[in-house]
């Protein structure tokens, strides 16, 4: 599998470490229902058969977390983007 790293270009997947579902967002720890929302965040997954948004870390490359859209039925990569915009883009 070749993942087009937004910074490095196409690289074999073995250069990356996989984390998983990128659709979940760390909830507000101060919210009253934090235990429920954290449970969802940490444990529950849509696990779709089809397009999946997921985190890959380019461990052997630019060390960026990359959000990869990938079809779990075919392994086709549908798109990639960096988790964080480069610092050069003035905030």
């Amino acid at each position, binding site marked *: *599998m*070749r*993942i087009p790293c937004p910074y490095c270009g*196409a690289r*074999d*997947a073995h250069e990356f*470490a996989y*984390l998983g579902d990128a659709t979940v967002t*760390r909830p507000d*720890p*101060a919210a009253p229902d*934090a*235990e429920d929302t*954290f*449970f969802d*965040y*940490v444990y529950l997954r849509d696990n779709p058969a089809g397009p999946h948004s997921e*985190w890959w*870390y380019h*461990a052997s490359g630019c*060390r*960026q*977390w990359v959000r990869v859209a990938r079809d779990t039925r*075919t*392994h*086709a*990569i549908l798109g990639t983007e*960096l*988790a*964080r*915009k480069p610092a050069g883009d003035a*905030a």
Partner: protein
Amino acid sequence: MSRLAKGGLVDRARALSFSFDGKRYSGLAGDTLASALLANDVKLVGRSFKYHRPRGIVSAGPEEPNALVELRAGARREPNTRATVVELHDGLIAASQNRWPSLGFDLLSVNGLVAPFLGAGFYYKTFMWPASFWEKLYEPVIRRAAGLGRAADGNDPDEYEKANAFCDVLVIGAGPAGLMAAREAARAGARVILADEDFLPGGRLNAESHTVGDEAGHAFAARLAAELASNPKVRIMTRTTVFGVYDGGTYGALERVSDHLAEPAPFAPRQRLWRIVAKRAVLAAGATERPIVFGGNDRPGVMAAGAVQAYANRFGVAAGKNLAVFANNDEAWRAAFDAAQAGIAVSAIVDVRETISPALTAEAERRDIRVIAGGQVIGTRGKTLSGIEVRHGGTTEALAIDTLAVSGGWSPNVHLTCHHGGKPIWNADIAAFVPGATPPGLSVAGAARGHFSLSGALRDGVQAGTAAASDLGFATATPEIPIADDAEPAIAAFWHVADSKGPAFVDPQNDVTAKDVGIAFKEGFRSVELLKRYTTLGMATDQGKTSNVTGLAIMAELTGAGISETGTTIFRPPYTPVAIGALAGHHRGKDFRPTRPTPTHEWAAEQGAVFVETGLWLRAQYFPRPGEADWLTTVNREVSAVRASVGLIDVSTFGKIDLQGPDVGAFLDRVYINGFSALAVGKARYGVMLREDGMVMDDGTTARLAPEHYVMTTTTANAAKVYQHLEFCLQVLWPELDVAIASVSEQWAQIALAGPRSRDVLARVVDDSVDVSNEALPYMGAIIGTVMGGIPARLFRLSFSGELGYEIAVPARHGETLARALMAAGAEFGITPYGTEALGVMRIEKGHVSGNELSGQTTARDLGLGRMASTKKDYVGRTMAGRPGLTDPERPTFVGFKPVDGTSRLRAGAHFLKVGAPADTANDEGYMTSVCYSPTLQHWIGLGLLKRGPERIGERVRAYDPVRGGDIEVEVCAPGFVDPDGEKLRG
């Protein structure tokens, strides 16, 4: 000798000597082992898997089911090697396999006598009584009888390597379609790789007798290959099998670099695994000839028609002296004509079809070959073939022949198209499965797509090559399509001579007969997948290349469903078997994984260190001295020396992460359970970080070197994991934080100095400007300075041992110098290098948690670190750590242990039981995580996790260790055995 007087693409000037089953023979350069054996009239070459029936050479390619040999000998022995693809070399040694005592007389062929009872699935129905007999009696017998060849006798002496290639267009197969595809893509300017499993490009052009334009087929192939070879953008890879299609246009290929030699040349690998990344690929892998199933069809001498043709045309070998053909298609007639042309007597062409092209019958007549239209072979005879029985027109007739060339038609080599789950589609017109959905970027051309004629293959190859190139944006010219002298061959689907004599083999290697397919049908194993699994059809080393379609066609006849509806099993990679060594490359032995030496490795080696693998690192484990009886003596000495005076150890393997920016403090507050934003500059603090699920991930000290500059240490094991976690937090969770991190693990060598005299030693290596007094560098202090005359250093007053201690970091190239300087400075104090064992002893004596406790199954509370957790802030893992299962007071919690009798040895991994309670899971109260012999206390001590441990100080529990015969009583105690109040640290 059956070598023809002339012809063939062999080098008649280069004779090669080889042996088979100990007997010496001679072949020619350009031979395969199979062609050389046939040239020497060796027809019996192997025994079948189950019934040990005698078998001969069937094919001339990778589909060979029968002619499997053990190639080479000793540590280089390669079992199950197909003689049909082994390139002959001088001195080649081969032996038949799966026979005892000899190939000609195999005692296990008695299995054949009981064959009527050993039908498909019989194993599942018997050998069950009594139950205990399976492992003891039945299974060993089955295991010995099964299998084929024997593994090598020793470790593989040859090397393998891996390599990567990139191209625009990968063409798989250098037959007519492949050569044309490669030519067109290359002419358009694409980077092309043309790979072929054979050592000679050309494919069937070399085996048949067609002309292209006015050129002989093989000459045309050679000319085209030469043209391609001269193009710098083309790489021709012969002896290279593309075996698998993986994701992203990655193809696995095996190059047999040295298999055509007795042994690899110096510095050359035996084989090379290629990962080829191609934007487009053209599969031009040709087709494989199928048999027709009839009684006695496994007798040596029954061959594929195309193979007989290949042996005659390419190798100049007569597969027999007297030939008949049994076929259902036109192609086989050409094989018969080529054989006749080569001088082999052709007795008859038996074709199941009543109606045959007049052109063919005329040609047969011209060559004086008898034609039996509408005929079927119903039996064979001879140990090696001596005759066949033919049924035609209501009569049967015996023909005395020694070779029967069989053709049931051709199956496109669709294998690679299936590797992404594509299902082949039945094409009734050509009686073959053709590619269905193909992997992205892969197209198919030529016979692999069902275009069996040479003209069709050439045209298809041109089109595929052009399309691939233009798809990638290369400008393509109007292609020129060479003209060949043939048309698409006709075929009438025919699989199985239903009422023939004797066992009729569908899968000859696994001894699956037509009758076995019938049993599967009767018992309900009717889907192709169940048929395969129940009968083992197609699961032999040939992966069913010749048998799958025939088997499922017979099943389709039984069920009455069409072949199309029955479908086929899909082929899985690899296309042909691949040596495991090739997939490993150099990564075996010491090179399985990189070895990371510490900055002081050479120094430690000089000191006589014994090293231990710590992840990829090699660390000094202990430093034995002459006369020391065992490792424990050494470790005791090292510990005592540190506690009495001073010692040093390289701790460079800890992960070290530089953190800079205005938000570092806030960031660390979120990743550690305790606070860091308020840490004073020049101070260090111990921190614990959790995973988001609330379990402890790692611990270590982090120092604040400047207001916006911290340096974190991690455990050796978790260095990469923590760095990745921090990047996740910064890039994904809190991208707004202005924090830059950089690993400095390799930049800094770090040496720990421990013991009451450590300050004295340190004072002698720091430069004058650096004050290391208790006031200037107090416990948990961190300062920047220079050592050894201007070498920059970071000095931390930390202690893992419980003694007065420091860690000194210097740029890594100076690490060894620092070790030597410390040794010199500490000489008068008897400074002692110590290793990871002594380090471990001292941390257990001190009651620190370490890797054994940070198991990923423990919470901060479990480890007695719960009070460190801030209640005033959020941090990773805080919310989930509050779940009832993680805060249950019954959870095993960190405490110390000592043997009640004061002498017994403790063992990590022992479980704790209440004294007097039965030894069962219900009474399991925790386990010992770490133990050591404490030279300070003069007895064994341990750390562990015990239910409600801290409430049970002074209580006795059983430390139960049945796997090592241990069962002793231990006393629960506080985890700090030495200097529990930390006075030494602060002194």
